[in-house]
């Protein structure tokens, strides 16, 4: 890979992000492998080993829990820190995720978004970062590899301004493994935008402080409120950084929300991450047919920009949320949050649950679902391209079939029509 080559180039998303991280001059990077984020830390490993990224300590640790724990120590000791994870890895480090935000440590972490097992599944959806949505971390979602690259540079500045950790979420495989064109900034550009890390609190033998003391009922609520307050502040800081980033780098990246052909739209589609490209293609196709439809991309999921989102959606007669997660027994998590942004407006909100476990989200299916929603023909929430016969069969067979195979195996058999491995008796 070409390291530290500014300008336009065609590279894998993970390598673009690795280079953007390196340009941000992290001082301690920890790494534990999990697909699909691995190429990022592999790239950084090479840069540290070769001396291209220096001074920097690269720690190969024994688990994701240790990966974030090591960064908690390093960040508290005044270093700019970075790691990346996905899926099970994020859940394995969950305790440390809350700890890092509670301690106010400005760690930046990439999430290569991926489903969570069981059943084990390595493909993309948003279940992992959604599971940690209220951990106190800021969560930004990238639409493209260019935006992923840009968001990481912004993330360090955002994290350090607020003393609050930031996850940059990019769709696993769809972005991490995609080769596409990016415009890589120069070291000078990044240095001008991102000043060296000045910690708000630091472990220093010459000025010893206690970090991480026990806080009882008399003050815990206040401490939590202060974290809440950081997120309220972040709403402003994120928009300011978007403007500042544009001044430095000449392109629009990040921010809270971005609208597409939304001005006169009766139907607005809201989504996060890489699916926004497909949605814009669908919007263009339907506009050509005379539908008044537009879309809104949500970049900042945490903090959740209630006001900005309300502003972006309030003109619509109908809002469709397309999301890659499922709150079991409830529906869409993003849809629930969006209803809060729209409270009092009586705007109908439809949810499309799509792409779970890496199920492709074809434009054809998306357009079909949008049309059905416009004519009021769909259930709420709508599960895109769901194989209902397989589900009905599984439900009907519940309790009837002897426990010789799991429900997941039965569904797989019924979907594929192929006999799957049976347990050996």
């Amino acid at each position, binding site marked *: 890979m070409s390291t530290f080559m500014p300008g336009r180039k065609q590279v894998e998303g993970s390598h673009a992000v690795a280079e953007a991280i390196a340009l941000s001059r992290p001082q301690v990077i920890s790494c534990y492998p999990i697909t699909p984020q691995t190429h990022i830390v592999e790239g950084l490993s090479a840069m540290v080993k070769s001396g291209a990224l220096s001074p920097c300590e690269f720690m190969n640790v024994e688990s994701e829990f240790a990966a974030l724990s090591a960064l908690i120590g390093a960040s508290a000791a005044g270093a700019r820190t970075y790691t990346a994870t996905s899926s099970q890895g994020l859940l394995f480090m969950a305790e440390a995720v809350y700890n890092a935000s509670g301690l106010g440590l400005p760690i930046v972490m990439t999430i290569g978004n991926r489903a969570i097992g069981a059943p084990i599944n*390595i*493909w993309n959806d948003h279940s992992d970062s959604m599971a940690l949505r209220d951990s106190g971390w800021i969560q930004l979602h990238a639409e493209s590899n260019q935006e992923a690259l840009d968001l990481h540079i912004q993330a360090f500045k955002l994290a350090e301004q607020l003393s609050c950790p930031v996850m940059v979420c990019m769709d696993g*495989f769809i972005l991490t493994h995609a080769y596409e064109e990016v415009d890589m900034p120069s070291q000078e550009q990044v240095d001008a935008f991102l000043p060296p890390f000045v910690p708000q609190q630091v472990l220093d033998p010459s000025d010893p402080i206690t970090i991480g003391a026990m806080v009882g009922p008399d003050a815990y609520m206040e401490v939590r409120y202060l974290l809440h307050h950081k997120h309220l502040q972040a709403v402003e800081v994120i928009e300011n950084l978007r403007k500042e980033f544009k001044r430095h780098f000449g392109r629009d990246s990040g921010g809270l929300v971005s609208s597409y052909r939304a001005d006169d739209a009766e139907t607005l589609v809201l989504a996060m991450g890489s699916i926004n490209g*497909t949605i814009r*293609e669908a919007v263009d196709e339907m506009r050509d047919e005379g539908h008044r439809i537009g879309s809104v991309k949500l970049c900042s999921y945490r903090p959740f920009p209630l006001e900005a989102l309300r502003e972006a959606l309030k003109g619509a007669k109908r809002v469709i949320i397309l999301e890659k997660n499922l709150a079991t027994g409830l529906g869409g998590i993003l849809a629930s949050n969006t209803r809060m942004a729209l409270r009092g407006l009586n705007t109908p909100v439809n949810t499309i649950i799509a792409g779970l476990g890496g199920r492709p989200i074809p434009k054809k299916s998306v357009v079909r679902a949008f049309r059905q929603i416009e004519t009021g023909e769909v259930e709420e929430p709508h599960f895109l391209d769901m194989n209902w016969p397989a589900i009905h069969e599984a439900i009907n067979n519940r309790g009837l079939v002897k426990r010789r195979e799991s429900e997941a195996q039965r569904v797989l058999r019924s979907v594929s029509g192929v006999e799957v491995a049976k347990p050996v008796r």
Partner: protein
Amino acid sequence: MVQVRIHGRGGQGVVTAAELLSVAAFLEGRAAQAFPSFGSERMGAPVVAFCRMDDRPIRLREPITEPDALVIQDPTLLSDPRLCAGLHPKGFVVINASAPIELSRLGPVVEHLPKGHVRFVPATAIARQYIGRPLPNAAMLGALLAATGYLKLDSLLQAISEKFSAAIAEKNHAAARASYEAAQAGNGVTSAVLEVAR
């Protein structure tokens, strides 16, 4: 927009082929996107990779189900009836084969493709000759470009240079060029390439 789907087996450089194609397109100033069929495949397992090329930014990210061209790096995959599914009626198929294969075996779409749109390339043999290893991807891409004219051979050679060290790039250049030139000489559903390689 042009959409290419590449089939092969783990270890045959299928993903790399898609990436090289995208870099070559980028070098010609076009927007391009390459990505693998995401999976936990191991050596030998069937692998699919995709490449889109366009004159405007590419926003679609779904797997390619209606390709304009198919590159089949391993003829043992031809037994899968879904292999050529969705191919455009005027699309192209480039197959790694040491001898021509009966087109009816490849399904009605392939059977009715225009003349010259199906190419058999002994890419493994070419790779053994020029690279010293059975890595057919550079040879397959050379033949694809010759058959379709999507991109210039020079762009592919430059992409190879960017991806590999000089020594390895040189060998792959030779394989790509040999295959490209042979395929250009070929005409229609032909075994010309085969003859050249022999």
